[in-house]
Each structure stands twice: as C-alpha cells, then as structure tokens.
C-alpha cells in the first residue's frame, strides 16, 4: 500500500511539474533574464512538436547537449502548426539569440520570417527536414536524414537476405503526402524494381500509427494468404502489424519477414526477440552534431552546408550488441 501511494505521488508530480514551471516562470518572468552572462551562447530551437517517441528523443538530445555545453537554450514546440513556429522564430529574433535551429513542419512559406532573421544577422540551421526556397542564403546549413537512402537500405537488406523465386511484399505506408512516407517508398521501390523476383503486391497507408498498422495488417492477411515480407515505413506500424500476424496464428519474423525503419528501442527488443528481422536506423540524436555545426557557423569556421546522418542497419546478427546503448 505504501508503494502505491508513493507511485501515486510520482504520477502527481509528473502532472504538477509543468504547472509549477508555469507558476515560477510567471513569478520570475519580470526580474529574470537580465543577469545572464553576456558571453554565454544563446540558441533558439523551433521544434515540430512531440508527436512521436522519435521526436521527443530528438528534443531530449538537443536539450541535454545544450546543458552539457552550458548554452542558453530556448525551446519552442510548434505542436504541428507552422504559424506557431513562425511566431517562435520572431520571438527568438526579438530576444536576440545567436543562432536559430529549425525543424520545419512543412516545406514552404518560410521566406518572410527567415528574411527577418537574416536582416537581424541571425544564422538559421535547418534540422531533420528541408525547406523549399529560391533563396538559399536564408539558411546557413542543413543536417538531417536521407529518407530515400533509408528505403534503399531496407530493400538492400531484403534482396540480400530473403531468398525465393517469387517474394511477395506488402508495404505499410506512412501518412500520405509526408516526406518520409514518399521518400521511403521511392527508395525501397528503386531497389525492388531491379530484382524481378520481388514484387510489392499491396501498398496501403496506416498513418505511422500503431493501431492503424494492426487494423491494416488484419485486412491484408485476409486478402493475401501468401505474404512473404512486410515493409513498414516506421516501427510503430510494424509493431502493430506483428500483433495482427500473431492473432492470425502466424509467426512474425519466421512466417513473414518484417522490415521497418526508425529503430526505436521497442523495435530493437523485437529484433532481439526475433519478431522483426531488420530495422534501418533513423537517428534522432542530432544534439552533438547540431551544436558542433552551430559553433562552426558562429566562429566563422568552414563547414559543410548539407550534412546527412549515417544510418545503420540492424538485424539479428548485430542488434543485441547495441540494444543497451539505446535510450529512446
């Protein structure tokens, strides 16, 4: 009973912490700020939101690195809306930050606000996603993942490891129209098209969602009794699909090969348990690289304008070695 009450307290503090933060921010809001050391680096970060484990791991990575380097780090979550991010950038400009890191929610519509930042002499570092602009001088550099390459890596693993004259693949797509869904589909298809014994027999969207992944897989299993491979654009859908496959009395990983992208910790555990065969990593841990880049930009050192994170491929042979180092 005692432990129950203490656990209730943890739940309570989880809920109370933000309320207290808000209260303390209100209390100190007027007096604080002025006494910050002048030489301290000030960096603003406009994040997409907190829509997935990947995203929160991404936010944590930057926050931890900022703490480690003693950077005055201003974080703003866009909650999935571009206008929130635009407002955040304006406020960063007004606060006179040294550099802005932006993970744009959409590709277009950034020119006006980025021009404001440029006029104020604040460099902008794009992270994770790119923007569509005619004026390349609006941002200093881009760091992110190559979604097309992730699709290619997934397909590469498949053609090397799955044997058969006629391998039938079903593809669980992400949200229609989103960059990772389009690119991961194209990269995968590019490699599959070169191998005549592999065919994608079905490709449907499960919106990157676990329960949708399960529902969709239930339907696909009824439609085709001879599915060999499931290729999922993210781990959540794959983890949902596994449950549908198990409910149908089949063994995921053995009866049906499962390949997915992102490599969250749960997926690693599934690989070790033999339920997922291969995961392609899409790392959210941009923190160290992002701050290295930021320092280079601010110190006027030479840097690459476009840096793509190296994505690893994990299967039963190497997943167990790295699983303990995974935090998200």
């Amino acid at each position, binding site marked *: 009973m005692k432990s129950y009450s203490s656990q209730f307290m943890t739940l309570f503090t989880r*809920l109370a912490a933000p309320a207290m933060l808000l209260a303390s921010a209100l209390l100190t809001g007027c007096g604080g700020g002025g006494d910050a050391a002048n030489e301290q680096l000030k960096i603003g970060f406009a994040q997409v939101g*907190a829509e997935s484990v990947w995203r929160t791991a991404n936010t944590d990575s930057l926050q931890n690195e900022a703490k480690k380097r003693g950077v005055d780090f201003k974080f703003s979550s866009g909650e999935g809306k571009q206008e929130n991010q635009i407002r955040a950038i304006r406020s960063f400009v007004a606060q006179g930050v040294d550099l802005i890191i932006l993970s744009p929610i959409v590709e277009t519509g950034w020119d006006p606000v980025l021009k404001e930042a440029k006029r104020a002499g604040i460099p902008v570092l794009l992270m994770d996603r790119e923007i569509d602009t005619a004026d390349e001088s609006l941002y200093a550099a881009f760091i992110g993942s190559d979604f097309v390459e992730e699709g290619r890596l997934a397909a590469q693993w498949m053609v090397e490891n799955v044997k058969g004259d006629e391998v039938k693949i079903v593809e669980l797509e992400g949200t229609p129209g989103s960059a990772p869904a389009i690119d991961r589909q194209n990269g995968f298809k590019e490699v599959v098209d070169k191998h005549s014994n592999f065919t994608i027999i079905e490709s449907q*969207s499960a919106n990157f*969602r676990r329960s949708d992944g399960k529902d969709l897989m*239930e339907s*696909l299993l009824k439609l085709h009794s001879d599915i060999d491979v499931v290729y999922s654009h993210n781990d959540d859908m794959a*983890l*949902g699909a596994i*449950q549908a496959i198990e409910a149908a*009395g089949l063994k995921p990983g053995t009866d049906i090969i499962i390949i997915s992208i992102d490599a969250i910790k749960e997926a690693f555990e599934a690989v070790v348990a033999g339920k997922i065969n291969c995961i392609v990593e899409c790392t959210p841990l941009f923190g160290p690289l992002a701050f290295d880049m930021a320092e280079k930009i601010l110190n006027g050192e030479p840097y690459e304008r476009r840096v793509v994170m190296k994505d690893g491929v994990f299967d039963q042979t190497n997943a167990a070695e790295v699983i303990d180092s995974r935090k998200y």
Partner: protein
Amino acid sequence: MSKAAESTVSKKSLRDNPLIWPLAGLALVIAFNLVTGPEFFSVSVRDGHLYGNLVDIFSQGARVMLLALGMTLVIATGGVDLSVGAVMAIGGALAATFVTQMGYGLYVALPITLIIVGTLGFFNGAMVVFGKIQPIIATLILMVAGRGVALLITDSDVVKIQDPAFLYLGKGYILGIPFSLWLVAVIFLVMAVSIRKTALGLLIEAVGDNEHASRFSGIEAGRLKLIVYAVCGALAGLAGVLDAASVSAADPMRVGELKELDAIFAVVIGGTALTGGRFLLFGSILGAILLQALTLTLYNAGVSAAVAPVPKAIVIVGVCLLQSERFRKQITNITKFGGKAS
C-alpha cells in the same frame, strides 16, 4: 410513450424510417464486394474463434461505436464533443500506467480510469452548462490540452502492456466472438433500455429540440447535459482502453487522432441531426459499421491510400443527402418530370 412512437413509425412508409439510409449504404458496400471480391465475406474458424473481414468490421469498429454512442447523446442535446479523441489517449494512458507501472489489478484500474475520464467529460459539460460556452469551443479546449495531459501521464513514452486481463479486453474472445463486440453490445443494450424504457430519451430530445421550452416545462436541462457529457467522456476513455489493449501498448501521441470526426460521421450517417433533438442509438452503431466496412472494402479493392478518402466521402455525402427529405423530394420531382418529357 415508446409504444405510441412505435405505432407511428409503423404507420409511416419504410422510406421515412431514418435507419433505411445507413442500411442502404451498407447494402451498396455489400453489393460492391459481392461483385469485386466475394472472398470478402468468407468467415472461418481459426484458433477457436471466428476469423474474417466481417469479424474485423465489428472488432475494429468497436472503438468508433463506443465513441458514437456517447456522441449521439451529446449531439441529441444540441451539443458536440470534440475532445473524445484526446480523452481516448488519456483513458489508455491512465489504465496502462495504473496496471503496468503501479501494479494495480485491472478490476481496480479500470473503474478508476473510467471515473477520471467521466469527470473530464463532466468538466466539458460544466463549461457548456455553467460557463455558457458553445460546446464546440468548450470541448475544443480538452481536445487540444488532453493530448498533453496524456503525454504527462506516461512521461511522453509509449507504455507497453503485458497484463493478460488487460490484453483480454482487446484480444479476447467469448464463444468465438471478440470480447470488444460483447462489450459494445452490452453497453448499447443498457443505454437503449435506460433511455427508451424510461423518460430519459424523451427528456434528452426535448432539451435538444428546444432548451428554453424544456426548461419551462420543468426539465432540468443543465443536469441532463452534465450527465450526457460525462457518459460521453467515460465511453471515450473506455474506447482508449480497448485501443491500448488491442495493440498491447498505450501510445499517448497518436491514439484517437481524428477519431472525433469518425464518431460525428457515424452519428450523422445514422440519422441523428447535428441540430439536436431526435436521436437514434442504433443508427449510430450502423453508421460506425458502415464507416469500417467502407475502409475495409477500399483495402480489399486495392484503392491507394491517397485516393481512398474520395470514394469514402462520396458514400457519406450520398447517405447524408438521402436523409434530407427535401433533397429526396427534388429528386423524385426531377425523375417525374423526366418521365413526362419522354
């Protein structure tokens, strides 16, 4: 009262029965499947339970059915509840945290969860009744804030569920039929009986038709609304628990996203007008079934994800238009006119 209502229904022609239109939509979907792929209807027994698309329609549709049942009552009072999707996330997150992280049994965790989400619904109602805030705005607050609350409960993480009793809610079978379906059936029956065999249904309809008039005739509109929003919240939370049980994990970020729209669709297709007043619980169930059947049919027909919303929208708009008496009259006029001309 109910007997009188039944006899008037039977006197009217079949066309005026509002259930006929969602049934017609369903018939269309069935006919389409009969032509394109009759294997859609095959049901077999696997591992001692029923297995097939028809079973999936019900087991996957159970969550929207629960949401739609609560939503029907709210809409009948002339309101709407946009927060059901977020409340689903809270319900799943709470139950999963109670069971897996605090070690409570399901029999404790589930009632506590339902009381908490019911209270959230009650707050929605309080804002509508006491705050005089329009329902769409009052519930929008929880729709936006609720997901944040769910994230806080689970510490922004996905909670994995291993408790067998919890998983049974989403994966269990009784007599070969999914447990979730039994649950929906029992809740539907309890609601139907308590609403149609007492004056409750009449009172709710009266509030939705004309709140002022109902208050003057002695109905406590405010108290009724509070109850209705609380029931809607509790059912949404239960739907969230079912969702979490079916995938063995409570994901506070994505569960229930846009599900409020599915619920409203199901209610409207089922013949309940958004303006309030007359409502049909069974119609909403049919609406939820039609939605799910459509989704599965589009998978079956291999329609790509980018195009899938279009045929779905056409069927929904069609059913809604046919429900309008005026539209039907115009159509019959046109066809009559055409007949004369030729």
